């Protein structure tokens, strides 16, 4: 699995980083996110996902949020935006391993009503394959 860091630790300001591990298999992109998903990191995540959709024909995006420590409406907006982008392409956004405190924020936003959530990556990968 490729490990890509798209925000480096910034010790001088104590800035929080967002890192991800990326795995691309046929038309499926798996991202394991780590850090805070907020105004600072949202745009880079959006670009990272959209590049794979636009240039590599990815149609299923699985986001593992196990190591996401914080999310606000900037982060939620990126998730909703990717769902909206994939929908007309016949694609899917799947979210797995959501920590309880992150899920509470998502629940208030109504996101779980429209985006599919899974306990783990395996279940997310299997769904839709007829498994």
């Amino acid at each position, binding site marked *: 699995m490729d490990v890509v860091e798209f925000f480096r630790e*910034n010790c001088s*300001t*104590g*800035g*929080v980083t967002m890192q991800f591990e990326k795995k691309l298999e046929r038309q499926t992109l798996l991202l394991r996110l780590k850090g*805070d998903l*907020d*105004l*600072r990191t949202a745009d880079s995540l*959006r670009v990272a996902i959209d590049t794979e959709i636009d240039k590599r024909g990815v149609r299923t995006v699985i986001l593992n949020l196990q190591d996401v420590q*914080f999310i*606000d*409406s*900037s982060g*939620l*907006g*990126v998730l*909703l*935006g990717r769902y909206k982008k994939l929908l007309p392409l016949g694609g899917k956004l799947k979210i797995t391993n959501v920590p309880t*405190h992150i899920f*509470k*924020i998502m629940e*208030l*936003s109504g996101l779980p009503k429209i985006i599919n959530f899974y306990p783990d990556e395996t279940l997310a990968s299997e769904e839709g394959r007829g498994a």
Partner: protein
Amino acid sequence: MKSNQLTLKFTSLAENVSIARMLIASVAAQLDLSLNDIEELKVVVSEAVSNAIIHGYHNEPGHIVHLTLDIDPEALKITVKDNGCGIPDIEQALQPAYSTDPERMGLGFVFMQSFMDDLQVESVVNNGTTVTMVKFLDRTKPSSH
């Protein structure tokens, strides 16, 4: 508990949103608040500061955002102030799902209203916006929850 006040003044950079969250988390940790309350306070500060940067200053760096925390035995008051473009219609901005940006969910004020006991928004077009949020610390006080 002694009354206390802290003010953080910072430029309108996205990097500073996480620093604002660190401040509220540090202050909240000294109060008798649950981990859930602390998480919610981090969200409301993140939303208010992000709004100031994105909407108040249209993501332009170099402007100033003020975050003030007033703590007394009864309440924690959070004030976020910008001198940006202001909100022409506050009532509309407070509506759920209202956003001027299709990539955003328009949930900032929803979170602020849900997680805090009081929310006041004062704004003058071309002169800035002040968002004031209160969380009562004395559990006998009225609560919106």
